[in-house]
């Protein structure tokens, strides 16, 4: 559609900058507690149930939830909507894993610690390559979504908007570490929930559901079909992608280490339950595009475009743009900050200290950590200049992370394993998944990657298996 920006660019700048200043102030305030590296990276290992559940939920509500979930619903219909919601199973299943992680690694700091102890330096290196590629990919998709959002809502030129969002998130993550991230996540999760409920109620109030159904039957029948191949594939692919994202990434492991031991499983389970309806609500908004006469020119923007249209019908005028911008900016910031913090922890702990064998004095920790955050951001920024299609970028990483699902499960629960065979399975899973992504269909990468890795991992339990080091004792 021809974008008549709903709010002036100056207002959009003011909102993002104003929220950014608020997050920075709160980051500095909460960051005062981060006097040690453990305080900065793990918030003192004392996070309770409310903050724990809120930070997990807010981190999982990313720009991908608010922008890719509508895209999936618009392109893949009802199954697409449910496919995105299946990513909540990753959070739900991380609850029992968090219980086990805390028991095996009570003093663990990053997910890298686990891979190093279980699979040796080769397995650890494979994990680091995969997780850094994935984390940068995730960050790039959010930066692109942020740039597109500010372009759509505020008419801010793409590169300027994308840069603005990244700079704001970098600043407050630099000041406060995980304390700042978790604190701001709590506030952002409340704003996201309130905003999505409000927009959902307005959509239901201004859309006649039977007429939406009639429109879909007439013009977009495949969106209601129980046998839409691409959508059916998306269900299992997304579920396994979600498993891989949550089970391997340091964003979630650092939260498991940061929460009190008995809190972590409950917090992850609660966050999964709270998260499940969000992509369904966001997806339903997109299904209303046709019936509302919204011409979609970029499916990546269909969610905010329809929401803006509906709030406009409800008489909110330019305030509609303000509401959408605040909600979506919070959804992006809550994930970008988490990813920056968790990825920089990996760079500091696993690369700087682990690979390069550098001893990190307490006084050197903050500058090194800050440098890591800035390096990650600059890489993401330079890749996001392309403005790639966000769902294609995101799903290309599915094969990589899904290949780590079974190695994580086996390493946490099994007593015997052939570690080299598991590592070979990770590599084969990545290769097979990427082949499927490019050669068969976009929504097969994670599915094939997880399947191949699973076969190798199960074989590794029986073929040449050796007892694993007993971490519990």
């Amino acid at each position, binding site marked *: *559609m*021809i974008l008549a920006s709903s709010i002036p660019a100056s207002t959009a700048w003011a909102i993002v900058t104003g929220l950014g200043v608020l997050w920075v102030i709160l980051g500095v305030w909460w960051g005062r507690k981060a006097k040690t590296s453990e305080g900065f990276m793990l918030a003192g290992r004392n996070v309770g149930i409310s903050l724990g559940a809120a930070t997990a939920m807010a981190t999982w509500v990313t720009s991908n939830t608010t922008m890719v979930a509508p895209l999936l619903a*618009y*392109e*893949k*219909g009802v199954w697409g909507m449910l496919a995105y919601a299946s990513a909540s*199973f990753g959070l739900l*299943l991380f609850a*029992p*894993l968090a*219980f*086990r992680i805390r*028991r095996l690694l009570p003093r663990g700091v990053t997910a890298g610690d686990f891979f190093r102890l279980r699979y040796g330096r080769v397995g650890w290196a494979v994990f680091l390559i995969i997780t850094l590629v994935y984390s940068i990919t995730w960050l790039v998709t959010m930066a692109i979504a942020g740039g597109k959002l500010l372009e759509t809502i505020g008419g801010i030129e793409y590169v300027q908007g994308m840069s603005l969002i990244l700079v704001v998130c970098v600043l407050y993550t630099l000041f406060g570490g995980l304390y700042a991230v978790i604190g701001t996540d709590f506030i952002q999760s409340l704003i996201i929930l309130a905003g999505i409920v409000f927009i959902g109620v307005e959509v239901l109030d201004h859309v006649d559901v039977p007429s939406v159904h009639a429109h*879909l039957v007439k*013009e*977009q*029948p*495949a*969106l*209601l*079909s129980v046998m*839409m*191949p*691409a959508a*059916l*594939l998306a*269900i*299992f*692919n997304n*579920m*396994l992608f979600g*498993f891989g994202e949550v089970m391997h990434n340091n964003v979630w492991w650092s939260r498991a280490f940061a929460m009190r031991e008995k809190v972590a499983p409950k917090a992850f389970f609660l966050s999964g339950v709270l998260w499940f309806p969000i992509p369904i609500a966001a997806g339903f908004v997109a299904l209303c595009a046709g019936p509302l006469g919204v*011409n*979609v*020119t*970029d*499916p990546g923007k269909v969610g905010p475009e329809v929401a803006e249209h509906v709030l406009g019908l409800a008489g909110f005028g330019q305030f509609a743009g303000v509401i959408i911008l605040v909600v979506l900016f919070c959804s992006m910031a809550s994930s970008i900050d988490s990813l920056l913090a968790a990825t920089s922890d990996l760079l500091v702990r696993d690369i700087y200290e682990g690979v390069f064998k550098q001893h990190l004095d307490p006084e050197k920790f903050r500058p090194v950590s800050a440098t890591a955050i800035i390096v990650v951001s600059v890489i993401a920024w330079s890749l996001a200049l392309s403005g790639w299609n966000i769902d294609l970028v995101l799903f290309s990483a599915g094969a990589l992370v899904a290949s780590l*699902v*079974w190695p994580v*499960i086996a390493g*946490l*629960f*099994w007593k015997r394993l052939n570690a080299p065979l598991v590592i070979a399975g990770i590599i084969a899973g990545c290769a097979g998944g990427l082949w499927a992504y490019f050669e*068969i*269909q976009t929504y*097969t990468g994670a*599915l*094939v990657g*997880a*399947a191949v890795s*699973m076969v190798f991992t199960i074989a590794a339990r029986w073929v040449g298996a050796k007892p694993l080091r007993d971490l519990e004792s």
Partner: protein
Amino acid sequence: MLATANAAPTVTSDIKPDAEGKLTSDDGTIDLVWTGGHGPCELQQARDESFADARSRYEGEDTETVLTGLADGVYHFRVREVPSGGWSEPLVVNVESMNRGTLFLLLGTGAFVAVSTIGSILYGYHKNR
């Protein structure tokens, strides 16, 4: 310049043609772009190549759209300036989903891996709690 202004618009798609030059979508999504219009345009879609069953899919100032949810089959698209410009050459796009054999193989694999993953986590948790 006058001749250009009166020419019918052209409608294209980003879908890459196959070896035979056919445009095929495997997921029912078709992006369309039209150029050469001077003002509002109308986009029509038809299953019949003579456009006997044509229906209007868009009318307005935009010069592109993304149509989704199209069932398998052959679709014809054309664009004109409204109210009375000449129609563009039709663009023909096939919607052809993945064959059922491959689909069910992948779905079966996905279901098996997903159930096995969930089961192994719950079993491992139960055994080690």
